[in-house]
C-alpha cells in the first residue's frame, strides 16, 4: 500500500516522457564518457574513472536537459549541501538526485555530510503529508527519490525511494528498457524539383526560335 502510494505520486512528476529523457541523458552521458576515455590506458582504475566521470557527466546532462525544457514540469538546481554541490531535479511532488552504483541491487552510498540520511528522514516524516495527493507541498517537503544507475556490466536505471527502515521496491521498471525519446530524428520533407514541358511545346512540331537569335546586340557592330 505504501509502495503503491509512492509509485503513484512519483508517476505524477516522472511521466513516461520524463523517464525517456532520463534514459536519453544516461545514454548520452555514458557514451560521452566512453568516447572521452577511449584513449586512456587500460589500468584496473579505468572502470572507476569511468564511473566517476559518468556520475559527473550525467548530472551535467540532466541539468542541461532541464534548462532546455526537455523535461515536462521539472526544474533543476544545484544545492550546496555543506559545501558539497548536489544536483536536484524538482517536480511538483518529488525531488530527484542521481546516484551511480556498481550493481542494480546496491544501495546508494552514504553521502559525506548526511544528505541522503537527511532525505531518508524527511521521507519518513513526510509520508503522512502525501496521504492526499492534492495537498499542497512546500519546496522542502518533496519526496526525495533517487535515480539509481550503473552500467559497468549491466545497463540499468531505476527510480528508488529510501526510508530509514523500510525496504521499498523500485518505483519504476528499468528505465533503460523504455523506448527512446524522439529527439527530432526526422528531416524536412523536400520535393524533387521538376521541370515541366510547356504545353505548346509538347504539341508543337516546329521548335521555337532560340532566344540568342532574337537577342539584341548591346554594342552595335561597325
Amino acid at each position, binding site marked *: 500500500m505504501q509502495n503503491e502510494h509512492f509509485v503513484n505520486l512519483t508517476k505524477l512528476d516522472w511521466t513516461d516522457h520524463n523517464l525517456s529523457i532520463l534514459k*536519453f*541523458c544516461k545514454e*548520452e552521458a555514458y*557514451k*560521452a564518457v566512453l*568516447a*572521452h576515455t577511449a584513449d586512456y590506458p587500460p589500468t584496473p582504475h579505468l572502470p572507476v574513472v569511468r564511473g566517476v566521470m559518468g556520475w559527473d*557527466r550525467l548530472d551535467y*546532462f540532466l541539468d*542541461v*536537459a532541464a534548462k*532546455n*525544457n*526537455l523535461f515536462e514540469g521539472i526544474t533543476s538546481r544545484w544545492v550546496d549541501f555543506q559545501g558539497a554541490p548536489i544536483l536536484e531535479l524538482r517536480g511538483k511532488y518529488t525531488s530527484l538526485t542521481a546516484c551511480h552504483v556498481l550493481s542494480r541491487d546496491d544501495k546508494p552510498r552514504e553521502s559525506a555530510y548526511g544528505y541522503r540520511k537527511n532525505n531518508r528522514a524527511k521521507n519518513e516524516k513526510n509520508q503522512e503529508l502525501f496521504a492526499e495527493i492534492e495537498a499542497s507541498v512546500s519546496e522542502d517537503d518533496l519526496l526525495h527519490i533517487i535515480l539509481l544507475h550503473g552500467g559497468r556490466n549491466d545497463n540499468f536505471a531505476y527510480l528508488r525511494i529510501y526510508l530509514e527502515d523500510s525496504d521499498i521496491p523500485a518505483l519504476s521498471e528499468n528505465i533503460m528498457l523504455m523506448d527512446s525519446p524522439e*529527439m*527530432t*530524428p*526526422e*528531416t*524536412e520533407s*523536400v*520535393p*524533387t*524539383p*521538376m*521541370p*515541366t*514541358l*510547356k504545353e505548346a*511545346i*509538347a504539341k508543337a512540331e516546329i*521548335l*521555337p526560335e*532560340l*532566344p*540568342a*537569335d*532574337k*537577342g*539584341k*546586340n*548591346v*554594342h*552595335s*557592330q*561597325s
Partner: protein
Amino acid sequence: MSTANPERIAQVREFAGLSKTDLAQKLEVSVAAVSQWEDGSKNPTTANLISIAQALSVDVKLLMKPVPSVVLTRRGPAIFRAQSAAKTAQMKRRANRFAEMASELFMLLEQWVSFPKIELPSVTPSNIEKAAETCRKAWGLGNLPITKLGELFESKGIRLCSAEFGDDRCDAYSCIIDGRPFTFLGTEKQDRARARFDIAHELGHLLFHQHVSEEDILNNSAEIEKQANLFASAFLMPAETFSKDVVDTSILGFKRLKPKWGVSIQAMIYRAKTLELITEETFERHFRNMSARGWRKAKAEPLDETIPLVNRSLGKSTLELLEKNNVINIWEILSDLPLPNTVFQSVFDRDLHFATRNQVVLGKEFIRPKIDPNNRN
C-alpha cells in the same frame, strides 16, 4: 566577312580568364585591335575570328552569336562567399561571365520548359533569426534538419550550378540575372559540410543583398559576410530544435550531432555560442581543441562522409525531359548555342565526352548528333 559579336568576344575572353593584353599576345596583334573588336568599332577578319576562337577554345559560331541583352543589362553583382578571397578582379569578371553564360543556357531551356516558381521571401538582415524563420516558413519547412538542401533550393526557383574558380579559397557566389537567382558552388572543395553551409550562406546573400551595389558590397564586405553567415547558421540550425539537441556541449557532443544536422562541428559551436548554449570561454577552448586536433584545416573534420551531398538535379532532369520527349538533345543545344563545355557541365551535370562514348556504345542515347564534341571545349 565575319560578323563577330563584340560583347561576345569580351565575354568569352573574360570567361577564359584572359586580359586584353593576354589575348593580343596570343594572337600577335595589338591590344588596340582587341579593344576595337570588343567595342565594335572594328570587325575582326575571318582569319582573326578563327584565331580568337582557337585562342579562347570556343566554337567560332559562338563568337558570332549575340549575347541576349537582358543577361548583360539585368545582371546583379556577383556576391562571393569569402569576398576577400575572391582576390582578383579577373576572377570576379570570369565568375560574372560564367553566370551570364549559364543564365543564357537556362533562358534557352525556358523556351521549352517551365522551372519551379521562384520563391524568395522578402526579408531584411535587421533581424537575422527572424529572417531565417520567415524563409523556412515561406518554404513550407518546420524546424527540422534539412537533408536535401540542393533539391530544396532548386524547388524554390534557385538555379544551382557548379563552377570552377581555379582558387580553392573561393567557395561560392551568387547573383540574380533577369530576376532569376543563381548560385554557383565551387568544385575545388569536396567538403560536404562546407558545401551545405556555402549554399545556405549564398541564400543569405540572395535574400539580403540583391539590391546592394557592387561598390557597397566591396566597402562593407565584412558585415555582408557576417550577415550571410549568421543567416546560414540560423537557417540550417533553427534555435528551437537545435538547442534541444545540444545536451552535451563538449566537442564530442557536437561531433555526435554532425551527421544529424549536416553541418561542421565548427559551425555548430559558433551557433551554440550565438544561442548562448556555451560560454565565450567554452567557445574559445573548443576552438583551441579543434586546432590541436587539426580539425580546422580544409577537409580535416571527421564524419564528413556521413553528411548528404548537395545534389543538383534540375538541369539534368530538364535535359532528360527534353530528350525523352524528343524535343531537342544536348548536341542540338550545343550546336545552336555552342557555349564552353564547362558551362554545359555546370548546368546539366553531364560530361559531354562521356556522353559521346555512351552514344557510340549504345547507339541510341542521343538520337540526332550534329557535331563532333571532341572539337569543342
